[in-house]
């Protein structure tokens, strides 16, 4: 087991190097211009924009830029953002709290909701509960998040005025009042994300439960006279959770990636909003850092999922 983990970590390093190279290449070759906003401004002629590109190092061929990026990363330097002309890493630390609060909470709630709903749906397949759950799950993922977000915003923020539209990132939770304020401003974005994430997880949980409910060992256990509840909880649940837990673990890196649309809609300005504005402004160092950190997390959680899988399902052998 330990040997397996060490080997996986050793493989992870070249993998990440290759990933970083590919991402860098994609970003370097993809069209875009950090100064596109000023393209037509006669006061900011092309000669000036060219100087700025040189300052950003964009005149160098991209493989050279990659080597530079990699060597400074070795020293712990993620480069500077074209937008702020300050260190990229500062930006990420500034944005992380908002993303963790909103997207993290939503993920947690989604997991807590989806597992029991999935279980009941499967155990009572085609019951009213199951049909209602199925219906809502499909509303959840056939309706895009910008649509849910807009509807919620119109109803609850604009007509009923229960929640604010503008998320205040500088709010500091010091007492009950600020705490309720924080909860109020989080409610709408969190709801949008919960609706989406619960939907997919519920379906996978249900399907996984159904697969196991039909197995012969369940019949055998029932035949042995074990109560239904016992059978479901003890055997079916444990086995059905295996793939779902893998999925949940694999989903954790996406928390870091933030929720681009929802964050932007409610002005949460977390990492998702940072990513999309940086992409739109071709702020390559920021996009590079965010994507690469996401890649690291993906690889790490992939490993965790694989280990979990082995722990939970003894039949899986590490080879």
């Amino acid at each position: 087991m330990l040997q397996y983990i060490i080997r996986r970590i050793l493989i992870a390093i070249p993998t990440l190097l290759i990933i970083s190279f590919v991402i860098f290449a994609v970003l370097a070759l993809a069209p875009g211009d950090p100064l596109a906003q000023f393209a037509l401004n006669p006061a900011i002629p092309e000669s000036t924009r060219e100087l700025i590109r040189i300052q950003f190092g964009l005149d160098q061929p991209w493989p050279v830029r990659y080597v530079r990026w990699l060597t400074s990363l070795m020293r712990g330097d993620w480069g500077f953002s074209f937008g702020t002309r300050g260190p990229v890493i500062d930006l990420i630390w500034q944005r992380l709290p908002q993303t963790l609060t909103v997207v993290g909470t939503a993920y947690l709630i989604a997991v807590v909701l989806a597992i029991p709903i999935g279980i009941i749906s499967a155990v009572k397949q085609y019951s009213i509960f199951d049909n209602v759950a199925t219906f809502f799950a499909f509303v959840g993922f056939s309706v895009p998040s910008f649509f849910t977000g807009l509807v919620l915003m119109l109803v609850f923020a604009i007509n009923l005025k229960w929640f604010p539209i503008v998320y205040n990132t500088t709010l500091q939770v010091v007492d009950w009042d600020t705490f309720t304020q924080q909860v109020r401003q989080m409610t709408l974005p969190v709801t949008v994300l919960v609706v989406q994430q619960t939907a997919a997880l519920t379906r996978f949980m249900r399907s996984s439960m159904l697969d196991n409910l039909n197995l012969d060992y369940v019949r055998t256990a029932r035949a042995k006279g074990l109560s239904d509840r016992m059978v479901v909880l003890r055997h079916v649940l444990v086995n059905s959770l295996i793939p779902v837990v893998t999925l949940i673990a694999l989903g954790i890196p996406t928390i870091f990636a933030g929720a681009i649309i929802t964050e932007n809609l409610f002005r949460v300005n977390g990492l998702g909003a940072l990513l999309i504005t940086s992409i739109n402004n071709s702020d390559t160092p920021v996009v590079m850092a965010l994507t690469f950190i996401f890649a690291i997390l993906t690889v790490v959680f992939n490993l965790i999922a694989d280990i979990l899988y082995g722990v939970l399902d003894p039949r899986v052998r590490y080879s």
Partner: protein
Amino acid sequence: MSEIELNGAVGLSPSARAQQMTSRLPAKPRTLLSDAWRRFRKHRLAMLGMFVLLTLALVSFVGPYFYIPRLAAQLEAIGSPFIQERVDLQTAIDHLDFMNILSGPTAIHPFGTDDLGRDLLARALYGGRVSLLVGLTAMAIAISLGTIIGATAGFFGGVVDQILMRITDLFLSLPVIPLTLLVVYLFRDPVIKAMGSPEAGIFTIVVTVIGCLAWMSTARIVRASFLSLKEKEFVEAATALGVSRPAIMFRHILPNAIGPIIVAATLEVGSAIITESTLSFLGVGFPPDTPTWGRLVTDGSQYLQAAPWLALFPGALIFLTVLSINFVGDGLRDALDPRSRL
């Protein structure tokens, strides 16, 4: 645990054997497929889903031939005739009528009109053609890629697994928007040239981009199922009987992993329809005047207050499609699952 799970595992082998028998004896009247179809027909919701899907497709492709002449005649009657003599769907979706902007559902415009007075039903019909094709094709690409990669990785394990899974990691971490812009920038003109027409070229690019960026989660799910299934006794039995590896993978293990694949497939159709609209926001999808369902929802959502039907009708169509595909998927799972065929 050992007792129960052993029982479970042993209990599977008869079905595997049964399967083998059917595959070895094709002349037998009850084949795997006809068997599945028989069970599928019994699944009421699945049949309903199938019916709705076929209806949507039929209406999108045939409906305009009945609807457009009627619309043209009625528009002429209210003094807003088509500016060109051609009476076809293309003319209808481009027809502006500033006297009737943001009108609610009426006899002339059953789905209402948008901010330029264009008929929403005509646009939804046109959009249905594109969106249904995009959704289903992209799903097929994503699911086949995901299944093949996941199955290979899970079944062979070792170096193959490592390489494939690291490729999966790579794809998961690629920044989608710059990548899409890059792909289109590099391949749009060559593909359009190769396909002969801009429409076919753009369609190919759109479905390929969506499909190739969505197979990763399927691959992981399939791999996970394979990792656990390949250790089961029925696989050992099949191996012992000298069944070839691809046959074991696709004939014996895959049917047991079909449940999560079908869930992933149904999810993928809906998300492909929506992703298509995101692509056109990057300018890499269909031309901006192609009213796909995803685009209609996005454009319409601006008018949620003044004209909610603009987003609700196309939204409901996407929902109906996804829901139907899910029911079909449920039915397929029950029908194909080797364990339920006793």
